[in-house]
């Protein structure tokens, strides 16, 4: 495992995977400065699981491919240490056990509609426990949730599929503390490591959010993946990386 030696910069990584029905999974990892300027970028060759792997991994296939194979490889390739890695795909959170970087999943909080007369508390589980809570009354909120109540939303939040039942279960395992942040219109939930310095992380994310819409860099990554694919693939070349069977 390549652990970057220098201390983290005031930079953030944005990690996402684009899926193509013909070519498989393309990964992209972009490191941005706090001002939103690009510092480093890596993308991966496409990965197309074969039938054997689909059967072997079942419902956990995406989690394995995104987090353990593509995500880990891309972050490992990066030279710049970051404060945290952000992803917009819950399956990527499986990388948290493999890399030392703080990992946060970002999602946009849907706007409340008139059909919902009462405000919906976005952190349902977190409210039910007497958790440490830091809130400054403006537009951010940090909750640290204890072991038995992973601090992640119950509606639309990241989930893992149970291979046996097919039901969704929390992506962070029981017995591990997790972190949830609400920054204005974004909800972030993090890997266990995030819990160590929630105030610092929150402050850094808030500085980032002044300059960057937190889900926007993933658009850049997807554009760059398409560009890299367009430039590197000769017309008519359908080759791609595949699992060795």
């Amino acid at each position: 495992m390549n652990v970057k030696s220098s201390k983290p910069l005031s930079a953030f990584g944005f990690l996402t995977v684009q899926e193509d029905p013909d070519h498989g999974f393309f990964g992209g990892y972009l490191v941005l400065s706090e001002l939103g300027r690009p510092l480093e970028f890596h993308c991966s060759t496409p990965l197309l699981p074969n039938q054997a792997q689909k059967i072997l991994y079942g419902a956990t296939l995406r989690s394995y491919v995104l987090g353990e194979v593509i995500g880990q490889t891309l972050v490992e390739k990066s030279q710049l240490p970051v404060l945290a890695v952000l992803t917009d795909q819950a399956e990527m959170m499986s990388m948290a056990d493999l890399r030392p970087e703080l990992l946060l999943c970002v999602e946009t909080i849907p706007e409340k509609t008139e059909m919902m007369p009462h405000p919906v508390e976005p952190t349902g589980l977190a409210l039910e426990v007497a958790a440490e809570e830091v809130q400054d009354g403006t537009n951010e909120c940090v909750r640290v949730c204890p072991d038995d109540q992973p601090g992640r939303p119950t509606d639309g939040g990241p989930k893992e599929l149970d291979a046996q039942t097919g039901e969704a279960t929390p992506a962070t395992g029981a017995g591990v503390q997790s972190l949830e942040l609400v920054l204005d219109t974004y909800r972030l939930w993090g890997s266990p490591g995030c819990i160590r310095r929630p105030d610092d992380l929150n402050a850094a994310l808030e500085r980032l959010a002044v300059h960057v819409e937190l889900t926007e860099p993933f658009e850049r990554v997807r554009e760059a993946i398409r560009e890299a694919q367009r430039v590197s693939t000769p017309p008519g070349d359908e080759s791609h990386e595949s699992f060795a069977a």
Partner: protein
Amino acid sequence: MNLSQPNWWSNVLSHSRLALEIHRPDFLPLDWQAEQPAAITVPFQAPRVQTVGCLFPEGGAALVGNGPLSFQTRVAPQPTKPMILPEPSAPRLLRAGGKSHTRVRPPADVVKLEDRLLYLLQPPLENLFASEAMDFPFRPFRYQFDGIAFLYPRHEAVLADEMGLGKTMQAIVAMRLLAHQGHLRRSLIVCPKPLVTNWKREIGQWAPELPVTIVEGKQQRRHWLWENVNRGVLLVNYESLVRDSPQATATCSPFDLMIIDEAQRIKNGLSTTSGVVCSVPRRRSWALTGTPIENSVEDLVGIFQFVSPGCLQPEMKIPAIRHSVRDYVLRRSKDQVEIDLPPKLFRDANVELTVEQRDAYQLAEEEGIVQLHDIGRELTIQHVFELVLRLKQICNFDPVTGTSSKLDRLTADLEECAASGRKAIVFSQWVQTITQLRDQLQSLGPLEYHGKIPSRQRDGVIEAFRNDPDCHVLLMSYGAGSVGLNLQFAGYVFLFDRWWNPAVEDQAINRAHRIGASGPVTVTRFLAMGTIEERINNILEKKRELFNAVFDATAPAGKMGMSREEIFGLFQLNFPEVA
């Protein structure tokens, strides 16, 4: 570890039998044994992906210790050079989904993947406007963001938006971005003389921190400016640039950016103006024009001598030209950008000449044609033009009595316009016609704007027209008033006589029909029936087809512009060389 066959799997397979025993009091003892089913081994190899990546310059600087500090120090980032996104005075988080994102896309001539990615991975332009430190008078339209994103990465570009869509503003903002990023130290803007003050005002609005120096005044002062102003924006009109060509072309270092406005001024590649403009040393060449083709594709070839020498050749066919310029030219019409502009209503005022005008016209035409025939092989296009101009003048006013059917119609329309408190612009190609109109329309408080009005008075004329409620009519010449002016408060445009090509007419009309227009713009095109004006109008329509053939791929290729044969054909004359 042998990934192909885990240890635990091997251990299980080593048992030859599986045993199951159930002991419950309510059940009879059961001793059941089953044969081990046949097993297959699936070799497993951890999947791997290859990666492609790059460390951008700013990232490299950060890696060696010049970058921003980590959050542990709680020190605000110190950028090493001016940033696109300066620190706002009060933090305000960017909300999700609030607006669209305009990406800067690399030009086609950028081939290295790393360079292309650096363009694509830049923040969206909209982020600029979320920052309070970047002060803009108003939020640009979506298509204007696209225009800025088009110009920003290009060293060679033609912004050919239809008149009134804000080419000036787009160029200034793109210039501002480049300046903020340290790519521009000294820029040069060349424009027609009447537009110098307009450019200065627009830069003050859209890039107030950029110092602007107008190259004007006495020769000694101008020369000093050329030699000593080494930062900011130099603003000069075409005539002054030609006059100061030794100083402009012998500059110690190239201009980082050179913008030419109304670029059709250099459509003739053999002209002195073109020669001087093209010889100014520069790193980036941007041309702004609403009419990249006025008469023929040669016009575009001339403009490209400045933008990208060698890209176009005079003998190229229209499809080849269209292919060659596609990455250099951005052209949007008002219809395409879907901005909420009020409608532009055309009325063709087809008038019959008065009896006096008709008599004078017939006499002039008959005598003129006879004279042209008498010239014989010495006949030139200039002779034909002289007759055309004489006939067109008669279509405006009878030279003896001063009667005019156009004036009668115009007076009625303008009185109605003034009564409703609206303002109108009347275009003519002759100062003499404007003078006659001024005398006849005194009750409406007409103002004049043409070549004989001194430059220093022209801004005052526009201000009076804009602000004086008693001034309802502005009489303008096509030459002086068809470009660059913002007269969107005028709801009526009258083309008292017609220009030689439709592009200039469009320029004139779009003084009023542009962003900011508060209501529909009614355009009245006068045409004397059964005269040379009607014949010219037919040729103008063909020129519109030509323009569409180059810039609109869906339109069929039209005929070329007004050829010598067509001009001679106005009077059923044969081209002398052929005769």
